[in-house]
């Protein structure tokens, strides 16, 4: 229950609807018990004192009750049944808003697939609980109580018999469906397995054919298919019992009531009309009993799912503005790393990193793969935060600069390009409120994307991603570059962001950037030293800390890692040349 209590504030918003709904349920139930009662009286009338006028009266009553019941069924659905959809909407909105505040440490820990599962499947389970569970539960409960009393009023022994049998409907539902869920999950797992196998086969069909693996692939698929069918049948062996058993249990109750009730009619304890009335009540209870079983299961699923959603919702955003944030609206662009350390778990990736990047200069960060170059650059726009030491811009700790100002000042082009499935234009102007056409043209020119546009049929309006054209790695990187340049950033961060761009274009881009980056600060990393050797300052990272700082020529004479790396790069090319 403790997890579902998080739903209360969401439900509280719709108090009025819920109360009106409850009233509709009560009124609807009141009307629904009229028909069996009238029917019973009519039967007794027909048996003991036939009267056409009374008959007309009874018929009218039944129709009237049906109208009343229908009206309140409509009212119930127009009030409380809608609430579940509103709550679903609110919950999803809140989740999305919350996700936007969480930082990369969170996204690093939690896989996209897992997160998506929570926001889709779990969200759905919660909605189903709210809709089916909570709403149906109310009407079921009202119905059960009212009808039970009416049944007991006719004859309590008979009512006892009925209530000794009927709960088995709910119990079966709970017990069977719990095992069913397990088996169903096994079916789903195998389905996923089989689909993955097929999907990989289709995507890799060239390899399959090149290595003449067709027959063996067919055999492998057949095995997966076999297992899938097997699990399905195992599921059905059990699931197939559910409905027959329901019919059976309800039937038993009917048969016992027919026998015992019949005997009581024969013994003049109750009238035929009362027996018919009782019988009708019994039928009315069938569905509520089944739905009670449903509700119990849904409650469990809903609670488990809500817990998984809350795990995300209760995550506190680590990177945000605080009371210590200063009212800064613009930065100049001088960066300083002061004794910076970052760790993942217990391992320090960076420790004691200190260096300055003067305003308007270009600093390259060099080091072997995995030394922490990206981590270090990510500290500037606070993609992540230092665990010790501080990163300063214009002498102010980045944690005291408003997040909005900070990020507005930084143009970040990451290693892995992420483009939205939208047009190229929308991607390029992604970071600006009111894009200026001239500025857009300039950004496209600098990023060398302009010449590619001619090749694309729809030019800037070409849709990229899932549903559109898939761009080459280089084109994607250059789009990301245009997107960053478009923002006119004070600080530009190029994190190995031209790895898929050919060398010639690379140098064109770099010289273009030099033109527009005057008075702006640039931080850059690259796989090849030749790309960055013209930087004003080169910082070499080794074993998580700064080992060398200087210009290209200075570092070459220093004879450290940088010189070694550069020599190796030259050597390789020399070898190629032979």
């Amino acid at each position, binding site marked *: 229950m403790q997890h579902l209590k998080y739903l209360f504030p969401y439900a509280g918003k719709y108090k009025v609807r819920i109360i009106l709904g409850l009233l509709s349920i009560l009124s609807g139930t009141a009307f629904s018990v009229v028909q069996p009662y009238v029917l019973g009286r*009519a039967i007794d009338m*027909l048996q003991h004192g036939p009267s*056409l006028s009374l008959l*007309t009266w009874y*018929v*009218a009553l039944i129709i009237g009750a*049906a109208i009343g019941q*229908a009206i309140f069924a*409509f009212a119930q659905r*127009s009030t409380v049944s809608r609430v579940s959809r509103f709550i679903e*909407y609110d919950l*999803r*909105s809140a989740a*999305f808003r919350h*996700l*936007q505040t969480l930082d990369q440490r969170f996204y690093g820990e939690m896989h*996209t697939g897992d997160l*998506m599962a929570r926001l*889709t499947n779990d969200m759905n389970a919660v909605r189903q609980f709210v809709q089916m569970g909570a709403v149906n539960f109310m009407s079921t409960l009202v119905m059960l109580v009212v009808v039970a009393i009416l049944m007991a009023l006719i004859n309590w022994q008979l009512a006892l018999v009925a209530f000794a049998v009927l709960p088995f409907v709910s119990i079966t539902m709970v017990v069977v469906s719990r095992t069913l869920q397990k088996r169903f999950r096994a079916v789903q797992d195998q389905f996923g397995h089989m*689909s993955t196998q*097929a999907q*990989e086969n*289709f*995507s890799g069909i*060239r*390899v399959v054919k*090149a290595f003449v693996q*067709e027959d*063996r692939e067919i055999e492998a*698929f057949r095995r997966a*298919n076999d297992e899938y*069918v097997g699990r399905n*049948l195992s599921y059905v062996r059990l699931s197939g019992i559910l409905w*027959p058993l329901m*019919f059976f249990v309800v039937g038993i109750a*009917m*048969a*016992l009531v*027919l026998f015992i009730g*019949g005997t009581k*009619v*024969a013994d*003049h304890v109750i009238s035929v009309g009362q027996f018919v009335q009782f019988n009708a009540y019994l*039928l009315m209870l069938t569905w509520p009993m089944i739905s009670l079983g449903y509700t119990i299961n849904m409650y469990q699923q809903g609670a488990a799912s809500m817990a998984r959603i809350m795990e995300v919702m209760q995550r506190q955003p680590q990177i945000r503005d605080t009371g210590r944030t200063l009212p800064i609206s613009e930065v100049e662009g001088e960066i300083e790393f002061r004794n910076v350390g970052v760790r993942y778990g217990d391992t320090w990736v960076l420790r004691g990193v200190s260096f300055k990047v003067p305003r308007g200069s270009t600093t390259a960060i060099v080091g072997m793969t995995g030394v922490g170059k990206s981590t270090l650059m990510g500290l500037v726009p606070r993609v992540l935060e230092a665990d010790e030491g501080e990163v300063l811009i214009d002498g102010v700790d980045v944690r005291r600069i408003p997040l909005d100002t900070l990020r*507005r000042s930084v143009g*970040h082009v*990451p290693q892995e390009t*992420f483009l939205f499935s939208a047009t190229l234009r*929308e991607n390029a102007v992604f970071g600006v409120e009111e894009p200026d056409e001239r500025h857009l043209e300039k950004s496209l020119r600098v990023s060398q994307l302009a010449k590619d546009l001619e090749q694309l049929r729809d030019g800037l309006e070409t849709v990229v*991603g899932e*549903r559109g054209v898939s761009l080459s*790695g280089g084109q994607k990187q250059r789009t990301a570059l245009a997107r960053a340049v478009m923002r006119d950033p004070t600080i530009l961060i190029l994190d190995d962001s031209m*790895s898929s761009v050919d*060398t010639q274009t690379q140098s064109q881009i770099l010289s273009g950037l030099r033109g527009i980056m005057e008075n702006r600060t640039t931080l850059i990393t690259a796989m090849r030293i*030749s790309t960055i050797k013209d930087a004003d300052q080169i910082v070499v990272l080794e074993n998580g800390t700064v080992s060398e700082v200087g210009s290209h020529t200075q570092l070459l004479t220093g004879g450290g890692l940088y010189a070694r790396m550069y020599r190796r790069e*030259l050597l390789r*090319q*020399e070898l*190629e*040349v032979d």
Partner: protein
Amino acid sequence: MRAYFSSDQDEVLGKAYDGRLVRRLVPYITPYWRFLLLALAFLLGTSLLDLVGPWLTKVAIDRYMVKHDASGLKVILVLYLLALIGGFAFRYLQNWYMVYVGQKVMYDLRNRIFAHLQRLPLRFFDTHPVGSLMTRLSNDVDALNDLLTQGLVSMIGDAITLLGIIIVMFFALSWQLALVGLAVMPIIAVASRIFQIAMRVIFRNMRVRLSRVNAFLNENITGMVTVQLFNREHTMFGEFDRLNQHYRAAALQSVFAYSLFMPIVIFVGGLSAALLLWVGGHGIISHWGTAFTLGALVAAMQYTDRAFQPIRDIADKFNLLQSAMAASERIFGLLDQEPEPPDVENPVRLQGVRGRIEFKRVTFGYDPDHPVLKDVSFVINPGESVAIVGATGAGKTSLISILSRFYDIQSGQILLDDVDIRDMPRADVRRHIGAVLQDSVLFSGTITSNIRLHNTDITDEQVRRAAVFVNADNFIQRLPDGYDHVVRERGANFSAGQRQLIAFARAIAFDPEVLLVLDEATSSVDTETEALIQEALERLMQGRTSIIIAHRLFTIRHVDRILVLHRGRLVEQGNHDELLAAEGYYHRLYQLQYQEQEQPAGTALESGR
């Protein structure tokens, strides 16, 4: 940002019955006709036994209760219980056999589709996205199963139940009561049908809109850093809210549809009870006949009540039929695709391939009207290594594809050891001519399973040797589980360089006499891995006929001969120095594409000479 994908299942509503398609489905069902017959028999039994309860109630009321005689009630109880037990067993067995047949048919169909796809030419995969093939294999097959298990059979069941109810009411109760019951049924049928049609549209809206919400969500989660770094949280939330509201509107429509439909069902239920009471009461009061008894009235009400569900079901099943017909249309469309032409009769089977390759005036185009290779002729001697260079679109990749017989050429001949590869079994061609393809495809499994694929003839030792040979052993050994290390879908847990090395190892493990390598321009490969790849490439080429689509300058300097393709024609050949000296097309290409690779080394080049 409006381009989020919509659902693949926006199918157009078509016919609910198409004789041609149904006839094609029959062969899939016939192997299981015995089980199908059993299911039908049990279905009939269930429907009949379901009629017993109300009838026994009628007898109990008329014969015993009204006469205050309890003597026969025990017999009635026993009969009732027997009918229940029988009903329970029949219902279960009917369901079991039906599902069994459905599962078997689906199993066959899926195998059939998958096997057929394996035989289709690459041309087919070029034009059909994987997603749509997956839909055929899963959703469409499921739709057919629904047709079989829930559609046809339960429609028959519903029809039997309805017919049984009508017959019992007509003959065992009274025709007047039966008419009343029959009169309300069309109301339910029409209301259900209208409701189903509306719900179908609403559900489709919900599905499409929800998938948009989820696609947006997925994209935003993946790109959250970008959103945050570019201060786009607010805009993105606005967009999300719009999609979320859109979805909510569709969901509320479904609530509204139910809120109209359910009251109608409730009202019609009450109306039928009232009418039956009216007619039955009149019958009893005015002594219309002996058929009018209290028991008959009660039984008539129960029967009518029980008729509601089958009517609603039948209305429901109509949609199912439409979906199934559309699905089978798509499935058969797929199965009708021409497979790769069969191997020639009495194909030539080469023993001990030396590896001589000859192209004799080869012309080929994916579209025959637009050849990408024109009249290309050359010979590659056994053990010779050859690089193919040319600008993008010169026909390099096509050359590899036709050598593997992924596509057949339009004219000319390709000879392996002087035998036309079309005269050889396709599988043999691919066994002798191994290919390392551009995108290093990995499958989920282990490193070992990725190197030997399904070929159990390749031992663990051979797998390891292959890996050592291509420099992959080192990084594999460092993995926690070594060669048993899990490869995730698409090899996502390996770097591009590592994937390429594994693909090399795979080619070597299969030990083909001729090797084709598409040397991809790999991005983000660090210096060390780059060196490993180059070394591996060099070893691959040694002593084996090899054709390499060269990207690296290194490679083209190490091959015996270079073939230069330009606009589908072979324009020059020779070794690097000869071609440079000739100052022809290669010379220009070299300056354009390769020279910059050595630019930073310019000084070293000078001093080295």
